[in-house]
């Protein structure tokens, strides 16, 4: 047992950090620190920079453009990206649909879609959630009816993140209406430019346009865009969700935010002295740093444990990372907002460069990140998973 990183791992970390420092376009990092969104072009630009280095899909098989890194290196890479902070890879293509395609897709699908994910030529979005089916995903109602060489897709998806930028959407749709809840579902790849696809933006409480509703009105989807077998889509969806092993901890973001809090507090006046000298504040910051350490050590243990885990099989320990990761991200945005103090309430659009740039986005980030304990299997669902799958209750 040796809990420290090996020399090779440390060297790898330094390499990643140096690469980011050398290649990340100016301004990206500051934007992320302020909780602002990158544009589609900026995300694409960065993805292609990583792709040129061969790093745009680290966990993929080498034959499809992956790196061959072990789970520890993958974690280090992600951690450095988050800590810098640099933009994370867009998960919908690289982490979600990509592995489904290279595991269950046809050769034609692999050749057609995978290379375009690596370069973000195709921006994907996720068509799982529906208005009537939140945490109860399998209650979905969207239908796909076979007509000759097409499926006719009808229904509605919601909470579709960044769909406004998307070229493609992967959709769970019911192909056998007679089958029981989890059965009779298929996994379809749908071109967003298809006739009958419409999109309604949903404004989030932070004022951002991040999520959307998507309506399918007799959309014709070629049968070649069915992944794997008809009516087996639920299995692929479970595989997709089970691949999310340790990404949800996002500890790098937490560390970056804690550093920003300390940096800000050194400059925030608190009636004559900097807030950073206030013992109450210092205790709160220290308490969060401790929690971050506990989560990070737990992440290390889960990642080290990866080696023994079958790929694509859900590891219930990841529920711990989801719960604590989201809580800690939320707790750090709370403290970020508290540091800013009275200026935190300024609307971020108004807090322009003239005066309040330092305060920008703190309350908006706090609002926005309430989503973390809701989506991706709410924290209540995660507790049930732990109770049932780990504790056997």
């Amino acid at each position, binding site marked *: 047992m040796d809990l420290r990183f090996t020399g090779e791992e440390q060297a790898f970390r330094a390499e990643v950090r140096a690469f980011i420092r050398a290649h990340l376009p100016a301004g990206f990092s500051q934007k992320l620190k302020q909780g602002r969104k990158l544009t589609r072009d900026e995300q694409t630009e960065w993805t292609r920079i990583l792709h040129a280095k061969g790093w745009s899909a680290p966990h993929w098989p080498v034959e499809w453009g992956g790196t061959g890194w072990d789970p520890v290196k993958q974690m280090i890479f992600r951690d450095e990206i988050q800590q810098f902070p640099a933009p994370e890879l867009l998960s919908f293509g690289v982490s979600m649909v990509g592995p489904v395609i290279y595991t269950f897709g046809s050769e034609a699908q692999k050749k057609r879609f995978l290379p375009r994910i690596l370069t973000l030529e195709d921006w994907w979005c996720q068509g799982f959630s529906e208005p009537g089916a939140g945490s109860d995903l399998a209650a979905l109602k969207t239908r796909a009816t076979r007509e000759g060489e097409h499926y006719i897709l009808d229904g509605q998806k919601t909470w579709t993140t960044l769909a406004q930028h998307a070229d493609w959407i992967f959709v769970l749709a019911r192909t056998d209406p007679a089958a029981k809840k989890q059965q009779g579902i298929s996994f379809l790849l749908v071109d967003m430019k298809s006739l009958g696809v419409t999109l309604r933006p949903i404004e989030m409480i932070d004022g951002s346009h991040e999520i959307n509703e998507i309506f399918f009105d007799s959309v014709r989807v070629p049968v070649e865009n069915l992944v794997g077998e008809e009516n087996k889509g639920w299995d692929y969806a479970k595989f997709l969700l089970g691949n999310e092993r340790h990404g949800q901890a996002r500890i790098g973001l937490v560390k970056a935010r804690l550093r920003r809090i300390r940096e800000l507090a050194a400059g925030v006046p608190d009636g004559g002295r900097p807030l950073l000298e206030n013992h109450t504040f210092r205790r709160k910051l220290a308490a969060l740093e401790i929690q971050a350490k506990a989560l990070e050590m737990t992440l290390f243990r889960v990642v080290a444990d990866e080696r023994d885990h079958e790929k694509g099989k859900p590891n219930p320990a990841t529920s711990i990372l989801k719960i604590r990761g989201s809580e800690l991200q939320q707790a750090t945005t709370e403290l970020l907002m508290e540091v800013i103090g009275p200026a935190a309430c300024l609307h971020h659009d108004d807090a322009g460069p003239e005066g309040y740039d330092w305060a920008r986005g703190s309350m908006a980030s706090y609002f926005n990140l*309430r989503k973390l304990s809701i989506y991706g299997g709410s924290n209540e669902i995660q507790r049930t998973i732990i109770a049932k799958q780990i504790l056997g209750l």
Partner: protein
Amino acid sequence: MDFTLTEEQQLLKDSVTRFLGDTYDFAARTTILATPEGQSAAVWAGFADLGLLGLPFSETDGGFGGGAVEIMLVMEAMGRALVVEPYLAEIVLTGAILRHAASVEQRAALIPALAAGECRMAFAHADPEARWHLAHVGTHAARVRGGYKITGEKVHVPFGAQAHRLIVSARTSGLIGARTGIGLFLVEADAPGVTRIEHRTQDGARIADITLSDVFVPDEAVLGDTAGALPAIERAYDEVIAALASEAFGVMDEAVSMTVEYLKTRQQFGVAIGSFQALQHRAAEMFVVLEEARSMAAYATMALSETDAAARSCAISAVKAHIACAARFIGQQAIQLHGGIGVTMEYKVGHLFKRLTVIEQQFGDRDHHLDLLANAESLLESL
């Protein structure tokens, strides 16, 4: 000990609730937010008609002689409806400054117009470096012939860019942070040397950053003692925090009601999600916190009649620390139990959460007030 309302109080409560019910549903509010001013002149006129704008002022001053209980009832209703018009800032806070610092003549000159909604006023106090320390006044008032010249920066003045008149606190002597040497000055908002920049806030209100440079204020526009205004300011802030606590209770009450209703109607896994015990217990905890918040709003209301200023401020700090905690818990849980719909702008609960978040910090967050309390005498022995 008596918690029942008098007939007049019940009437007041009913009339405010009815007025807001008629004019201020979620859609109406959304429309108001989208206007350039971010507030409704019609609603303000309605408040004037109902007598709300003159409520806290004595009848001799042209008001309706309402006390802390009446303000409590009004603010609860304002909270439920998420009223953005600055009743709290303009009538409760600025009004309290007038009541506690202005002379009889000044009150006679200012209050009737304020109560009629004709003259809009704002209290410009916060210093950019103060955070929430009330004595941290950096704006300076220099003695000149026939008056003062005021120079400095004021921030976060609620609807300050739309006010006709400002009351500005400024230092006539002493170091920044000293308890003495602070005076209050009535400034015409369009006086030479006044610059105002308006910002929107996350809860839909407007605030202004105000720069004063050599703004001349004649002697007759000085409110009270030029060096001894801090006690009046502290008292006014205690009053506004008490009122804020009642508003917060109103917002939380609405958030809990909406959440419980949602739990009863939203179906998942084939049943109403309110049948899940973990969510039931969370809702129960929200209810307990809500009831405590109601109690603390009442306590704040009671504390305002305390004559010992230190004891009164202790009690108010206790209330603010408590309400801030309650607001965070109830706001977050309301969002969590609503799930996805809670984090959208399309549903009222998100706006309740946003208002609660701003309330947490307004006039000092939990840590600030708990620090004050920790440095003071025991709350147990004070009130």
